[in-house]
């Protein structure tokens, strides 16, 4: 490789540090705001570092709004919905992915149909789901959001896992089948354990997409179910913006995403392109 001159090296470092500040600043700013008092976040010149790092905003936000359905409820609802969506999608999806990979059921068109459902504009799916859920009295329930999120999560899981199964050598399963294993046994005892890392990565991606989801949560819930992503804008709305409390909820809401960005390094390219690019 071409050696870098020291000037190039310095330039590289400067640009990368600038980029790091650019990408980290909004997150860090929110994190700092979550510890500020009202006087601090409504001040000019802006206060960068809060005087004391007390958790009062977090405590307030978890109990807020005062009618008792605060951030804590949001945390609970987000957890329930994202976990259930993931479990359902991975259970059904891993079977389908195996079927598509090994038996090529339905051929290419069927696989593509599954992939294309992932690309629906959510706003197009929201209206009929809203009307149907209204009809069967499912609006404003966890189940409604789990179903809606599965529309996008299931195709994602199938497509990504299919890629992982495609990479497994056939010989192991063949050996298992010849030794008298059933198809189910070959799947459950041979293939599935071998794709465990892929399975975990897929599940985590599916979780984070459901966790970050906003439009369905906005349109299909009212008062009983409120995810964290719903609470943030609902507090921004009024004339008085409670920046400290919202920042606290926002900080809690992005923790899983940050953990994933750090943990899933190896699978980020794949997960974010649905396996179209394999890094």
């Amino acid at each position, binding site marked *: *490789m071409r050696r*870098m001159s020291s000037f190039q090296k310095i330039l590289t470092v400067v640009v*990368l540090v600038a980029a*790091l500040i650019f*990408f*980290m600043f*909004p*997150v860090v*700013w929110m994190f700092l*705001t979550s510890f500020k008092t009202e006087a601090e*976040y409504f*001040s000019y010149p802006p206060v960068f570092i809060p005087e004391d790092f007390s958790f009062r905003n977090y405590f307030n936000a978890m109990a807020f709004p005062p009618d008792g359905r605060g951030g804590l409820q949001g945390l609970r609802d987000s957890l329930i919905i994202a976990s259930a969506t993931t479990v359902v999608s991975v259970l059904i999806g891993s079977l*389908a992915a*195996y*079927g598509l990979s*090994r*038996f*090529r*059921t*339905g051929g290419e068109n069927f696989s593509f149909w599954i*992939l294309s459902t992932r*690309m629906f*504009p*959510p*706003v*197009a*799916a929201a*209206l*009929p789901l809203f009307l149907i859920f209204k009809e069967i009295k499912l609006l404003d329930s966890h189940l409604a959001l789990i179903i809606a999120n599965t*529309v996008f999560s299931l195709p994602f899981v*199938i497509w990504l896992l299919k*890629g992982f199964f495609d990479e497994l*050598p*056939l010989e192991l399963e*063949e050996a298992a*089948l010849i030794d008298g294993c059933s198809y189910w046994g070959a799947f459950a005892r041979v293939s599935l354990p071998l794709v465990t890392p892929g399975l975990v990565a897929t599940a985590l991606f599916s979780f984070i997409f459901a*966790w*970050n989801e*906003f*439009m369905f949560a906005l*349109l299909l819930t009212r008062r009983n179910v409120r995810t964290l*992503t719903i609470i*943030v*804008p609902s507090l*921004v709305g009024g004339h008085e913006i409670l920046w400290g409390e919202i920042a606290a909820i*926002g900080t809690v809401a*992005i923790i899983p*995403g*940050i953990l*994933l*960005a750090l943990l899933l390094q*190896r699978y*980020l*390219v794949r997960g*974010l*392109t649905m396996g*179209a*690019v*394999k*890094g």
Partner: protein
Amino acid sequence: MGDRLVVSETAGTAQESGVPHVPGGRLRRRGVGILFVLPAALTLLAITIFPLIYELRLVFMSWELTTNAAPEFVGLQNLITVLFKDERFWTSMRVTATLIVLGVAIQLTLGTGLALLLNRLGRWRTGLVSLFLIPVMIAPVVAGFQFRMIYHDQFGPLNYLIEQVTFGRWHGLAWIANPKVALFSILMTDVWQWTPFLMLIVLAGLQSVPQELHEAAEVDGASPWQTFWRITLPLLLPVIIIGILIRAMDSFKLFDIIYLVTGGGPGNVTETISFYTYLQGFKFFSLGYTAAMAFIQLIVITVIAQVFLRFQKRGRGEI
């Protein structure tokens, strides 16, 4: 990230030789495959196809929830109104197109630049990439909230920064309330969130370009600039195109950031097609009309998705 990058092919290579060979024959294998796929197929049928058919029916109806009138069949009326009489629809399409074209262009340029720098890095690369990727993984509504604080004309750090670097000569702008810059503010939020995604894809592509090619070019006396345009870029093209298409499809659905940062305003200068559809359906309650708009978007997305799938199909083999 490995050293090798494969733009995946649709049917895995292993399958060319076929399904595991076992007694039972072809028929049974097909039966088994169907059993594996059935639960997912039924689920998708129930939660996507059925709602779509329901919605398709609505396209031809007039159904205003704000009046008590019963739904009524109006034929192509909704589609005709959307396409030929609704200026706001076309405005929102234009806003969306602007955000897609400018957004993807900026993200791709910045992302490629960063990827080229990161690619030359040694042990710092992995850690930096992870940190850069944080914006991609956080909820767009939270990103929107962050930028709402940053853009705040009175207390926001952005105007403060501007004032500091211009020595108090310029006090910055009302980034959200000023109709001339509101769209730009949205654009920058989107750029912040998605540049790292394109950076990641290009970086994955770069790491698959064989080092020998660069060395050969260097020996032949090519300048770094020539090497980039003549060798690196052509090799990266398939990956870049996939990245662009994914971003285009996602930007077409841009909603969360709009909802949080500007609410489509001021006026409707930042109203994207998704946001306008949301207003028609869930604020004005014109269900038939909303369904018509939803289907038009479905068609647009399907076209882009088809191009994407073609590319995935064609872009087989290694780069």
